[in-house]
């Protein structure tokens, strides 16, 4: 049997996704038996030339993690698309924009301004700013262009399979490795390697729910959460009800609320708005006799609405970026 030819790349990401693949333990050692890795610059010594030299359509599966922030990332995604029969978006950043996507709350000018001038740790007396092309003493140096917004992979090239997670959990990665053959053949059973139901469905605390409103909302550091009962009903914004299951409830198992890295549910119109709606509906106290300002008080715990409801998905939202 011929080995599956794969290539891997990273975009705007923290590097954790690449590490997560290396982190599968023994399974990584068996990998070369079934796959042939033709490009993976993070882990092995490959150069851009190696990628470009691959004949178009000659690769079975291209796996990309990270969002698309720079012109280089966009270009490489497009090259991947031409070289590969199937493209896998690996990790929440590639799937939805991820944490780097939160940068869409600011214009690129604001971001550069902040990073090079305003950040308290900066000393930049000469006022240096990165430029796509800069020249000194006859040399012309280029840097990838900083694009106006962060995009998910599918906003740049068509994607065939999504592997969510920040990073994908071990079991999700094993599922991916197991499915590589069928993905390569274009007949994978699932397009998204996660559950179509919400995490609550799999959550070990699902059974503890009492269908009660939470009178107060707490930010995670304001309360020591009980380790048995549903976190949401304890007043902590756990997005498990609006997030695909599949992660193994790993955050809940360490008593932390779900932040939504496995992505929003298939039927939802917008990644964050419906979670927001549900939270607004099930929190607060004594609603009948209080006057409106008092009723709104419960929301004071929401200090950063975008950060809470779109931590991994802002670029995929209906309102997905600040317009300059």
């Amino acid at each position: 049997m011929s080995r599956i030819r794969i290539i891997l790349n990273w975009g705007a990401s923290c590097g954790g996704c690449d590490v997560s693949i290396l982190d599968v333990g023994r399974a990584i050692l068996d990998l070369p038996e079934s796959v042939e890795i033709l490009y993976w610059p993070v882990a092995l010594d490959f150069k851009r030339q190696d990628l470009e030299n691959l004949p178009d359509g000659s690769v079975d599966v291209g796996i990309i993690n990270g969002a698309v922030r720079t012109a280089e990332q966009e270009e490489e995604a497009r090259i991947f698309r031409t070289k590969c029969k199937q493209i896998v978006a690996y990790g929440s950043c590639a799937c939805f924009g991820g944490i780097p996507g939160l940068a869409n709350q600011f214009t690129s000018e604001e971001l550069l301004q902040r990073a090079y001038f305003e950040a308290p740790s900066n000393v930049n007396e000469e006022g240096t700013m990165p430029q796509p092309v800069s020249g000194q003493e006859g040399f012309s140096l280029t840097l990838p262009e900083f694009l106006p917004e962060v995009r998910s992979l599918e906003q740049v090239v068509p994607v065939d399979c999504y592997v969510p997670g920040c990073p994908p959990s071990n079991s999700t990665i094993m599922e991916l490795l197991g499915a590589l053959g069928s993905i390569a053949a274009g007949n994978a059973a699932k397009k998204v390697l996660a559950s179509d139901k919400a995490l609550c469905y799999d959550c070990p605390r699902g059974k503890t729910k009492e269908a009660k409103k939470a009178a107060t909302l707490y930010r995670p550091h304001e309360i020591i959460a009980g380790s048995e009962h549903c976190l949401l009903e304890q007043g902590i914004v756990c997005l498990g009800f609006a997030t695909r299951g599949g992660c193994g409830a790993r955050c809940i198992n360490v008593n932390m609320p779900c932040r939504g890295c496995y992505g929003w549910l298939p039927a939802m119109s917008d990644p964050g708005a419906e979670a927001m709606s549900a939270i607004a509906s099930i929190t607060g106290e004594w609603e009948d006799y209080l006057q409106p300002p008092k009723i709104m008080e419960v929301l004071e715990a929401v200090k950063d609405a975008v950060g809470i409801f779109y931590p991994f998905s802002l670029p995929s939202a209906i309102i997905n970026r600040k317009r300059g």
Partner: protein
Amino acid sequence: MKNAPNPRIGVVVCSCGGQIAEKVNVEVLAEKAAELEGVVKVSRVDNLCRQDLSRIKQDFQGCDRLLFAGCSERSSLTFTEDRIGALLSEMGLNKAMFEVANLREQCVWIHDGDLTGKALDMLRMAHAKLKSNLPTPDPVKIMPKSIVIGGGPAGMQAAVDLAAAGTDVVLVEKRAYLGGHFCQIPYLLQCEGWPAMCVSDCVAPVQARKVAFSPRVKILTNAEVADIARENGNFRVTITRQARFVDPERCVSCGKCAEVCPVEMQNEYEYGWTKRKAIDKEYRLAIPDTYTLDSGACTRCGECLNVCPTGAIDLDAQPEIVEDTFGTVILATGFKTLNLNTLEELNYASPNVLSSMEMERLIAARLNRPGGGEVERITFMLCGGSRSAGKEIPKGMPYCSKTCCSIAVKQANRAAALKPHAEIAMIYFGDVRTYGRAFEQFYNDAKDYVEFINGEVVRVEDADAGLKLHLVTPDGETEELETDLLVLAEALLPQGNRLIEKLKLKTDRYSYPLEVQPRILRPTESFIDRVYIAGAVTGPKMVQESIEQGSAAALRALQHGAKGEKELLKFVSEVDPERCSHCRICETVCPHGAIRMTGEGAAVDQAFCQGCGLCASACPSHAIRLRNFSNAQILDQVAVAFSEVNGDEPKILGLLCYWCSYASADLMGVNGLKIPQQNFRSVRIRCSSSVNAGLLLEIFKMGVDGIIIAGCPPKNCHHGSGNYMTAKRVMLLNTVMRQLGLSAGRLKWEYIGVPMWRDLAKAIEEMDRTLRKLGPNPFGRSL
């Protein structure tokens, strides 16, 4: 939701005696209507509401749904949705299969000029919705049987009235006898209109006998409801009944058993003033007329067995469990009094400090205290734990218990009659609230023999003879007062809290169950369909008022019982178990207790669903949909809503809640207010909370420039807190918009009650102005 294969739509275009035709070219409208998908027949009429409708019935034979272009289905005084529903039923059509283009109230009455364009859009919107409407599901079978919980005057009345109208009733009373507090109050103020008293020894048995003699009422005393669950549109109830050691069929209440019984215990009926035996009758006139045995106190010595002449006693009797299904529930569990031990300053532990009910029984005993003790100086204190705003609940209740002033004045009247020379004082808090003609007269008369003192009792000490009270007067002066007896008029609270919780009744913060909106028209109707609340459980009341409520509840229950079925609403929710993630959010938000979790996920009992859409809009899995109000139907309407709006005009959409805000928009027209914003369109939504933030964004994505979402004013939502939910959703979404550099002015939440049409007009005008400044919505595609 799938569309019916081929909708056959009939369109009625009414010119409203020319009022619509004046500004809308109804011919064009009718022509365009005929071109719409599925329309098979269009009729133009002049005065639909004033006509014999048989022509309509004739004209539209063969249609399966009707679109009315004319007046408001909500606010018209002559042709509302109820009338349309009835017309459809007469035509053999399902009553859900209509929509209305509200061309009068919300178009020609609010704008000037040629309105054909806007009217066309409104017609298209109604059509877009109607084409995917679905018939209401079949009616649900309702058990023609009622359970009444609580055998006080309210419950007894409900039972008697239901039975008289032919309904079978089970009356569950936790005590051994009927009558509630009513039968413990020897002298009863009759009513607020006539200054006289009844005696309970007369009227309580009169009422209780009526119950006992109703063949349709099954009385279960010493019984409690252990469980009550909704099941297939009915209530499945488990009742536990204490063992019947004395067979009421045989017992003749001769009392021989009690004579020989060696065990004495407190008589609860007498609030401990007297003792009873382990086998006894708590009061002579108790109904059912039988002795009962207190299982906990009885030593099983068997003495009574030897003397009972009828062999009525069986010491081995076992408790029973009764299970039954009912179509209607009347909760009449009455009141309980505030636990006076929580008011430490009042020294309730002292034998000289009495609760109001203890005083009633002392009056029954002609003020003779069993242990002796002077009763020459009697002081009443009003508002014991009532009207104590600022105190922590349950140490004090901020509300007025309404009845206590009149009751205390009555007790003073009885005390004066029994002891003409007694010194009687009454300490009141700011004012005496003897409402109505009769009670105020008792108060005025009492001024002859009662010293009324305005002040607050801050401490009660035991004194050598009786008590010493420390008062603070309104001027801040301290006073002392000595008395033999202090009678507290304590706050009243609801009884039956466990049941209230089990039934998931919406309550206020004192646990009083609430009536559903508009409560002014729906007394005794709780938030749960076919659960009625009557008597003191809804708030302190006099007996007559409790009886009125019992009757009212019975009549309402009867309407369902008599039909034996419950017609479902046009809007009912339905769960797709395949999608349900068991998150229970729907169950948390459903204000009408229609949802429960099963192993397969959430399940809606449609006979309880009020179609508010709170569940569907909160379900993140989109596992619940509201029939005839799906997201897709709203988006279909939006898609055609602005077809006639000029490209650079801002497109303003009002999402107006079914009852308040939509009616308010109608009232703009009714009151002749003209607004220039012909670029405004409205969609009548089920509850302001039937639309979630995701859908709002979808609407923006379609190219709407600004959305006003409006719901009932605070405390007036027909579905509990739908308005607050939406206010919170919009606040969050506005925050997100602001974080992303968008003006929150594009999305406005408004509390708009029916009479607030001027505010609505202002909101529309403001939105229009804002949008003209902001320009087109940057994340929408053009409509």
